C-alpha cells in the first residue's frame, strides 16, 4: 500500500532533480553548506584556541639572530616578537630580491648560450640546466652550507682581497655603506628623483630618435642624467654616505674579529648562491623557449638590415621574447619567493626560522603561521603586480 505514494514521491523528486534550476539549487546549497560548515568549524576552533590573543607579540623575542645582511634587520633578544617576525620577513626579502636579480641575469646568459650556433657552448649550457634543474634546492643549499664552506680558511688567515674582501668560515666581509651624516634619507630621495629624471630624459631622446631617425643615444643620456643628479646631490648634502672597508682585527685577548664593512653570514651566502643557481636553470629554459617561439624571419630580417648579432639579440629578438617570457617569469619569481623558506634549514634567519622559535617558546602556532601565510600572499601579490605592470608595458598596443 506504501508503494504508490513512494513512487509518486520519487517521480516528483526526479522531476525536481532533472529540472536544471532545482538541481543547481540543491547542489549549490549542499556543497556551499558543507564548505560553510567547514569554515565555521575552523573559525570556531581557531577562536577556541585563542587566535585573537595577540599579547604574546609584544613580549621580547628572547634569543638574538644575527644572520641578516643588513645590520638593521638582525633580530636582538630584546626586540618584541612582532618586530622579530617583521625582521624575518625583511630577511626573506633580502635574499629573494638578490636571488631573483642574479638568477635572471644568469638565466638570460645561459638561455641565450643554449641557442648559439656554437655546438660546444650550447651543450655546456644544456649540461648546466640539466644539472641544476634536476637537483633538489635544499641539497644545493646543504652542499654549500655544510660541504663547500667547511673548507674555507680561518679568519686569521686573512684570505681574500686584502682591504676589500675577506673570506673565512665565519662569513664574507665586504665593503659596505654607512651614514656619513644625518642627511642620507634626503640623498635617497634625490636618487629616486634622479631615476625618474633619467627615465624621462631617456624616453624624450628615444621619441626624438624614432621621429627623426637620427641616433640620439637615449641610454647614455638617461644614465648621464641620473649620474649628474646623484653626484650633485651627493656633494650638496655634504657627503651623506661613505663606504667602509672591512679589516681583520685582533683583540687584546687574542680573539680575531672583523671590523668595518659588513659580514655576509654563510647561511645567507649559501641560500643566495643555491637559489640563484637553481632558478637560473629554470629561467634559462624559459628564455630558450621564448626565443624559440619568435619566428625565424625576425632574425633573418634583422640580419638583412645589417644589424650585428648583438644588436639582433638586444633590439629585435629579446624585446619580442620578453612578451612571452614575463608570465612564466612571474610564476618562477613567486616560486623563488616561496622556496626561500628552505634557507631556514641552513640557519638563515628568514621568517620561518624566526617564527618557529616563537612557536617553540609560546605554542602560538595558528597566529604565527597565519602571519607567515599573509607575508607570502602579500609578497607574491607584489611580485605579481610588478610583473603584470611590466607585462602591460611590453605588450603590443
Amino acid at each position: 500500500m506504501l508503494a504508490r505514494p513512494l513512487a509518486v514521491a520519487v517521480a516528483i523528486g526526479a522531476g525536481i532533480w532533472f529540472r536544471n534550476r532545482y538541481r543547481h539549487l540543491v547542489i549549490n546549497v549542499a556543497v556551499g553548506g558543507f564548505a560553510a560548515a567547514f569554515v565555521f568549524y575552523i573559525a570556531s576552533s581557531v577562536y577556541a584556541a585563542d587566535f585573537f590573543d595577540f599579547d604574546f607579540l609584544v613580549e621580547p623575542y628572547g634569543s638574538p639572530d644575527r644572520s641578516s645582511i643588513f645590520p638593521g634587520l638582525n633580530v636582538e633578544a630584546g626586540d618584541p616578537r612582532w618586530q622579530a617576525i617583521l625582521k624575518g620577513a625583511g630577511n626573506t626579502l633580502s635574499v629573494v630580491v638578490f636571488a631573483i636579480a642574479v638568477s635572471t641575469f644568469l638565466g638570460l646568459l645561459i638561455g641565450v648560450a643554449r641557442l648559439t650556433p656554437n655546438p660546444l657552448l650550447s651543450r655546456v649550457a644544456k649540461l648546466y640546466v640539466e644539472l641544476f634543474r634536476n637537483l633538489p634546492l635544499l641539497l644545493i643549499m646543504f652542499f654549500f652550507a655544510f660541504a663547500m664552506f667547511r673548507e674555507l680558511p680561518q679568519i686569521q688567515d686573512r684570505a681574500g682581497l686584502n682591504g676589500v674582501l675577506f673570506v673565512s668560515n665565519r662569513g664574507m666581509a665586504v665593503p659596505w655603506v654607512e651614514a656619513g651624516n644625518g642627511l642620507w634619507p634626503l640623498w635617497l630621495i634625490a636618487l629616486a628623483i634622479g631615476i625618474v629624471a633619467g627615465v624621462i630624459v631617456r624616453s624624450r631622446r628615444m621619441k626624438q630618435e624614432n621621429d627623426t631617425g637620427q641616433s640620439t643615444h637615449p641610454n647614455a643620456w638617461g644614465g648621464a642624467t641620473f649620474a649628474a643628479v646623484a653626484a650633485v646631490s651627493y656633494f650638496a648634502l655634504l657627503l651623506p654616505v661613505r663606504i667602509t672597508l672591512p679589516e681583520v682585527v685582533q683583540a687584546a685577548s687574542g680573539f680575531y674579529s672583523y671590523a668595518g664593512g659588513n659580514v655576509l653570514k654563510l647561511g645567507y651566502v649559501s641560500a643566495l648562491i643555491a637559489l640563484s643557481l637553481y632558478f637560473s636553470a629554470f629561467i634559462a629554459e624559459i628564455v630558450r623557449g621564448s626565443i624559440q617561439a619568435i619566428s625565424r624571419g625576425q632574425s633573418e630580417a634583422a640580419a638583412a638590415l645589417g644589424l650585428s648579432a648583438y644588436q639582433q639579440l638586444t633590439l629585435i629578438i629579446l624585446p619580442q621574447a620578453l612578451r612571452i617570457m614575463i608570465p612564466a617569469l612571474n610564476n618562477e619569481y613567486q616560486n623563488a619567493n616561496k622556496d626561500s623558506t628552505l634557507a631556514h634549514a641552513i640557519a638563515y634567519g628568514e621568517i620561518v626560522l624566526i617564527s618557529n622559535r616563537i612557536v617553540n617558546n609560546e605554542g602560538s602556532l595558528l597566529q604565527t603561521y597565519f602571519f607567515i601565510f599573509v607575508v607570502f600572499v602579500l609578497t607574491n601579490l607584489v611580485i605579481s603586480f610588478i610583473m603584470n605592470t611590466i607585462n602591460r608595458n611590453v605588450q603590443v598596443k
Partner: protein
Amino acid sequence: MSAVTAPYSPVAQRIEWAQANLFNSKLNSLVSVVTIAVGLLIAFLVAKFVLFDANWALVSLNRRLFFVGGYPGEEVYRIWIAVFAAAVLASVSYGIWVGRMRPYVITVGIIAVIVLTFGLGTNLYIEETPFTQEITSGGQTSTISGIDRELVWEQGWAPRWLYAFSLGLALPFGGTWLIMAALLALLVLGALFGKHVLSRWKSSPVLLQSVGAAWVLLVPAAVLLQIGVSINSWGSAFLDILIFAVGGFFSFFIGLVLALGRISPYRAVRFVSVGYIEVVRAAPLLVWLLFATFLKDELGPLGEAFSSISLVYRVMIVFAFFGGAYIAEVIRGGLQAIPRGQYEASNALALSSLQKYVFIILPQAIKAVIPAIIGRFIALWKDTALLAAISLINTLEQAKKILAGQTDIADGAFFEIYIVVGLIYWSVSYILSRLGGAAEKRLGVGERR
C-alpha cells in the same frame, strides 16, 4: 684543379664539421677555444677528485644506509620484490615502446661487468679492537678502555673509487651478488621479451591498458608489502621514494577532481575548488609541512585526529593535497585546450555528463598535459628532500647523520657524501624528465606551432 679528391674518411669529416661549426669565424673560434679550455679544466678537476683525492670509504660503508636507512635486514626482501616488479615493468615497457636495444644492452652490460668483476674479491670493513690503557697522573694509576676503529680495505686489483662505485650499485639494499645478477639479467630479458614478443600488439589498447594498470597498481602493491614493518624503520631513499609514490599517486586523483570542480556548472563547487587551489598554492610546501608537524590540538577534534597519526602518513597527506592543487592547474590547462566542438559533439550524441568526461574530454585533456604532469611529479620528487627540514630521516638527513656519526673513520668526506646524495636525487628526476621529453615527442604535444 681538384682532380684527386681525398677518400671518404670519418676523421676528415669530423674536421670538416669542426671547421664549419666551431671555427667558422674569429668570434666563434674564440668561444670554442675558451669553452674547450674551461671544460677540460673542470673535467680534469672532477677526475682528479673522483680518482685520487676523494675518500669513498664512507660511501661504501654506508651504501645500505643511503638506500634503505634503518630497515630491518631480514625484511629487505619486501623492498626487493617491489624493485624486481618495477624492473620487469620498466624493461618490458622499454622493449615495447622504445625498443632501441643496442645502447640499452651496452649500458646494462657495463653495469654488470663493473658489479660482477670489480667488486668480487674486494672487501671493506671496520675493524674494532678493544683496548685498555693505563694512565698515571699525580701518583694515581687509572685504566681507560675503549674501542679502536680502523678501516680495512682488502683490496683486489680494481682502484678504490671503482670498487666503491660497484658496491654502491651492487648492494644497495644489502642484497647479494646473486640478486644483483638476477636483476640485471631480468632488465635485459624483459626488454627483449617486450620488443620481440609483446610489441606485436603495440597498437592494441589491451596491451597498453594492462601495462598501464600494472604501473598504477605497483604503488599500492609496494605499500601493502610494507604491512608489518614498523614505520620508524622507513628511511633514506626508500622513504623518499615511498612518500613520492604515494603522494604523487593521490595528488593526481585529487588534482583531477579539483580540475573538474573548477569547470563545474555548479557555482558552489567552482568556488570551493578555486578557493582550495589558491589557498594551498599561496604558502610554500615547507610551511605546510611544518604546520602539519607542529599541529597538536589547535584545530579542534579534526586537528587532534590528524596529529595523532604518524608523521610519515601526515607528510604523505600533505604531499598528496599540496601536489593535487598544482596538478589541478595543469589539468585545467588541458581541459581549456579542448575545442568547444568536442563538448558540443558529445552533447549532440546525448552522452551523459559522466560519459562525456570519461570517454571524450578527459582522455584528450590528460594526454595533452602528460609532459606537464610529469614536470609536476619531478618537482614533487625533489620536494621530498624537504623531509630533512622536519626531522624525518630521508636521504639528505641520512647523509648529515652519517657525516656526524663517523668522523673517526673518514674525516671530512663531505663532498663525497653530498655528491652521492645528489646522484640519487638527480638520477630519478633525470629519468623522469627524459620520460616527459619522450612523452612530449610521442604525443606530438609541443608540435602545434
